[in-house]
């Protein structure tokens, strides 16, 4: 599903360049649930952003579902993001003046799906994350866990090939985190490919594979025995 070869990325900070990713080789197969672990500054978020086409690499190859991702302009990137990728952010990134339902339906708007169909589909996904009753509430009326579940529904609604989650439990307490991880595991069990960036060991161990990143290189890449989040709830 994802093939990455010799990926480099550096940021210019004035006259200095900060070399963040120093040659990453990394593959993800269909249906995997991968945690990318590392301390802050290890380059894990940068890697996720490049995979998510929110950022571009300086060097290296990135193939998503057989399509080489290079020379992207914003329009093309927007198209790919919309079709292939679903994002889940630490800070939820819901649009605050839109209801839960409208937030979930937004990716479908950019697929030019008619309003009615859009809302039906969004409702279906909200139902899947257990928030059907909350569909007409604004994000400010939802708890952190509920907000993240809305965000997950929004990431799922366009039926992307890969879900990318950046510290999705970072703003949540541990009980809520496990609830959200349970949802992620269930979604993965349905066959969806999911990448989770985290620095929390317990969250990483709820995935099926952990990639350790340190100072811009992969130091360890191992399959782990998945801990079911449900056990903690």
């Amino acid at each position, binding site marked *: 599903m994802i093939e990455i070869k010799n990926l480099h990325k550096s940021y210019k900070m004035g006259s200095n360049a900060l070399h963040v990713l120093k040659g990453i080789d990394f593959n993800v197969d269909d249906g995997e649930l991968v945690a990318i672990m590392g301390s802050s500054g290890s380059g894990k978020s940068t890697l996720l952003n490049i995979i998510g086409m929110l950022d571009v690499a300086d060097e290296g190859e990135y193939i998503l579902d057989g399509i080489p991702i290079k020379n992207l302009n914003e329009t093309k990137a*927007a198209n790919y993001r919309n079709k292939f990728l679903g994002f889940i952010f630490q800070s939820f990134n819901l649009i605050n003046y839109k209801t839960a339902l409208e937030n979930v339906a*937004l*990716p479908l708007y950019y697929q030019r799906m*008619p*309003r009615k169909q859009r809302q039906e589909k969004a409702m279906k996904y909200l139902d899947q994350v257990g928030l059907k009753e909350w569909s007409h509430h604004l994000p400010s009326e939802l708890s952190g866990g509920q907000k993240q579940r809305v965000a997950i529904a929004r990431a799922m609604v366009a039926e992307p090939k890969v879900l990318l989650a950046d510290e999705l439990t970072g703003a949540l307490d541990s009980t809520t985190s496990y609830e959200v991880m349970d949802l992620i595991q269930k979604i993965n069990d349905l066959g969806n490919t999911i990448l989770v960036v985290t620095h929390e060991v317990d969250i990483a161990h709820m995935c099926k594979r952990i990639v350790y990143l340190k100072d811009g290189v992969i130091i360890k890449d191992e399959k782990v025995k998945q801990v079911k989040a449900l056990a903690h709830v």
Partner: protein
Amino acid sequence: MFDIERWQEIFDTIRKNKLRTFLTGLSVASGIFMLVILLGFGQGMQNGIAHEFEQDATTIVEVWPGITSKGYRGLNPGRRIQLRNENYETATALYADKIEYKSPLIFVRNVSVNYGKEALVYGVRGVSYDYQFIDNQKMHEGRFLNYQDEVSTGKVAIIGKKIKQDVFKEVNTPVGEFINISGVLFKIVGVFDENEEREEERIYIPITTAQKVFNGANNIDNISYTLPPVENFDQAVVQAIAFKDNLRTYLQQVHTVAPDDTSAIQVWSALEEAKRYFSLVGNIKFFFWFVGICTIIAGVVGVSNIMLIVVKERTREIGIRKALGAKPWSIVGMILHEAIFITTIFGFTGLIFSMGLLELVGPNIEVDYVLNPSVNFNVALTTVFVLILAGAIAGFFPAWRAASVHTITALRDE
């Protein structure tokens, strides 16, 4: 533009950001409102001044003799100039092709006017029959003086409507009544209507009668001409000035007056006066335009500022939308669409309010030199479109910048 989904998205945004929308709209609506009101009053002043000048024939040229102010060819200054019939006749003959109506005028002095036992204190003037058209006398009843009255030195008189109202209350109509002017009976043949009240307190008699009966000899006190109408105003002014200068030169020669003596023979042209007023109005209108355009610019700056803040405030939202698959152009389109929609709605609101106010209040304004302030609808419409366009351009740049910011940077915006 006709994308219904986009419209729904914009209505959603507007509905949920009412204050922002209202503030943006207010600066647009007030800009248009001020401009239209200013332009309306500019037009009102022009109408008012045009109206003031319409009351008399605007091509009128009058000659007023006075006292010489400088010596000339051995004659002392301080000499009173007296116009005579032959001056009038010669001047009229000389410039016959340039004249439309003509009339000499004499003020009949030192006479007593009585109606029955009542003494009247109205000015009596001897004029020619053309005077009706020179002074725009509209007849209320009866007729004005005619050629026959003049050649037969008829003892007939025309009175103003105010005199009728004040003196002839007990008779049905003053026409046919007699008034006594210094022992001579004059039959009233007409009552005229004037625009200005003071002009209605006058009695007109034929000039020939005035000269013959009241020792006028062949003296006249004033000569009035009107020039034939010309389509083009500027051309008319040029013609009037040329006529005026010729007439003065002729009269100065006849009366041995220095060519640069301005007080001895004064020739006054209404058109020249009018031109002065019109150029003043032109300047005032220009000033109003200037202020109006400044108002619009202030409106545009206001809209741009708000757009800038709106875009800044929405940076994160733009990032989210882009992460979800919005293309840069759809972001720009969304912001512009919203901006244009709001400016249009509020622009027209301002337009409707201001035009409504002008329509409602305009006709009731009774001030000298301001008449029926109104604004050319096309001009007003154009300004609205200019504002919309300016708002769109002002909104475009921040929108474009926001849309081209890296998604990840936009998402990090707090």
